[in-house]
C-alpha cells in the first residue's frame, strides 16, 4: 500500500490530512499491519483538547493495546463514530479510516511532520 503524498505523518505512525486549519487523523498502513486485527477503538468526544504527541485515544487488536498520538495541538471538532462499530475498517482501509478531525491551534506545527517519502523511509 502506498502512502498518500498529500498526507503528513508522525514517527508514531499516525497520518493527518490537512485542509486549511483542520486535519483528519488516522493511523498508517504500517501501524495496522503491526497491530493485526483491530477489534476496538476508543476515541475522544467532540470538544476534547489535544496536544501534539499526546495520547488522544486507544486502539486494540486481538492481542495488543496501543495508544493513539495526536500529530497536532488543537480541538476535536468531529469524531468518526462509525469506526467504533466497524474497527476492522482500519485494517482494510487505513488511509481512509479517519478517526477525528482536529481544528489546529497552531497550523505551523504541521510543518515539522514527516512527508510521505520520509515516512516511507522510516518504515521500510
Amino acid at each position, binding site marked *: 500500500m502506498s502512502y498518500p503524498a498529500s498526507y503528513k505523518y508522525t514517527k508514531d505512525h499516525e497520518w493527518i490530512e490537512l485542509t486549511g486549519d483542520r486535519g483528519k487523523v488516522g493511523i498508517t498502513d504500517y501501524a495496522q499491519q503491526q497491530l*493485526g*486485527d483491530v*477489534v*476496538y477503538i*476508543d476515541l475522544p468526544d467532540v470538544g476534547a483538547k489535544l496536544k501534539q504527541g499526546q495520547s488522544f485515544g*486507544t486502539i*486494540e*487488536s*486481538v*492481542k495488543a*493495546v496501543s495508544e493513539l498520538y495526536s500529530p497536532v495541538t488543537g480541538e476535536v471538532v468531529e469524531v468518526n463514530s462509525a469506526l*467504533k462499530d466497524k474497527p*476492522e475498517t482500519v485494517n482494510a482501509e487505513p488511509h481512509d479510516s479517519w478517526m477525528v478531525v482536529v481544528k489546529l491551534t497552531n497550523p505551523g506545527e504541521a510543518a515539522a511532520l514527516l512527508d510521505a517519502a520520509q515516512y516511507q523511509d522510516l518504515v521500510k
Partner: protein
Amino acid sequence: MVQATDAPLKKTPLNARHRASGARMVPFSGWDMPVEYSGIVQEHNAVRTRAGLFDVSHMGEIEIAGKDALAAVQRISSNDASKLAVGQAQYSGLMTPQGTFVDDLLVYRLAPSHFLLVVNAGNIPKDYAWIAEQIASVGDAVAVDASSRYALIALQGPAAVDVLQPLTGVDLASMKYYWFAHGEVANVRATVSRTGYTGEDGFEVFVPPQSADRVWQAILESGKVAEVIPCGLGARDTLRLEASMRLYGNDIDDTTTALEADLGWIVGWKKDDFIGASALREQKAGGVARKIVGFEMVDRGIARHGYDAFVGDSNAGVVTSGTQTPFLKKAIGMAYLPLEHTAPNTEFDVEIRGKRTRARVVPMPFYKRAK
C-alpha cells in the same frame, strides 16, 4: 508476558518453514514462535469452521518409566493415572504441597509402566527438576526430559479427521477423545492423539524433529481442498479462551489452587497420598474464599490479563485472561472473584485504563462445539 531477552531464542524444527511462509514471529517462553500467519481472526475462524494447523513443538515432553512408574506419576500428578488404559490420556496438574500449580499437563499412558507428560514450554526445566526430586524416593522410576526428541503438530477443527485420514493408517474416526495411537503420518513414525487446546475436534501428532517439516507440508497439502491454514499462537490463545481452557501463567500458577481454578475434576480425590492432597482436601472441606469465573463485558471495552476487578468500591480480584473473541465476537475473560460474587449474572467492574467498566459473570465454557 515476561520474556527473557538475554538468552538466544530456541527454535522448533519448523522455524525455517514459519519464516519462509511469512509468519510473524515473536519471542514466547524463550522460543521464537509464529504469533500469526494470515491474521488471528481469520485463523481462529478457520479452526472453528474448517481446520487450522499449529506448530506446538515448543511444548515439553517428560517421560517416566520403570516398574514403579505408575506410583511415581500418582505422586506428582493430581489426577488419577490408575484410571488410564494404555493408549489413553488425561488432563492433570503438577501441584505444590499447598495445592497450587507448578504446571498443568497432559499425562499419556504409553505402556503399563511408561508415561509421557506434556508440559508447558516455559516450565520444562522447572517441571523436570521438580519431578525428578519428588519421585526419587518412589522406587524403580526414572524421569527423562525427552523434549528434544519430539516435534508436535496440532491439526484442529471440524475437518481434522477428513484432512488427516488420507495420510495415516491409524483409524481416526474410531479414536475417542483423549485417546491416542501409534502409526505413521505421511510415512513418518508418529503418535496421533485426539487432543487439543482449541475446544474443537482435532489431533496432536508427535513426530521425530527431523521429519516435522515433511508432516507439516503433507497435512497442508491434504488440507488444501478444505482450506486448512497454518495458525500461530495468537489464535491458539483466543481459541483456548473461548473454550475456557486455563493458561498456565495467566489463569493458574503457584498462587492459585486447583479448587480456586475450578479444576476440582482433575484432582483424584479417591487416590492415596499425592503432593498437594492434604491442602486440597482441607480446602474442599472448608470451602474456597475465591474462585475463577468467566465474564462478558457489559460496557464497551476489553478486559486484559492483570486488570483489577472491583465489587462496589473494593478491589476484589483480578482479570487473568481477556480478549475480544473472533468467533463469538464478544469481549470475554476469566477473573478471580470472592466466592459470594461468582454466581452467573453477578455484575462487577473491571478497571480499564482508570475507568470502571461493567462486566457480568457468565457460565463457562463460552464456546462449546456441536457434537
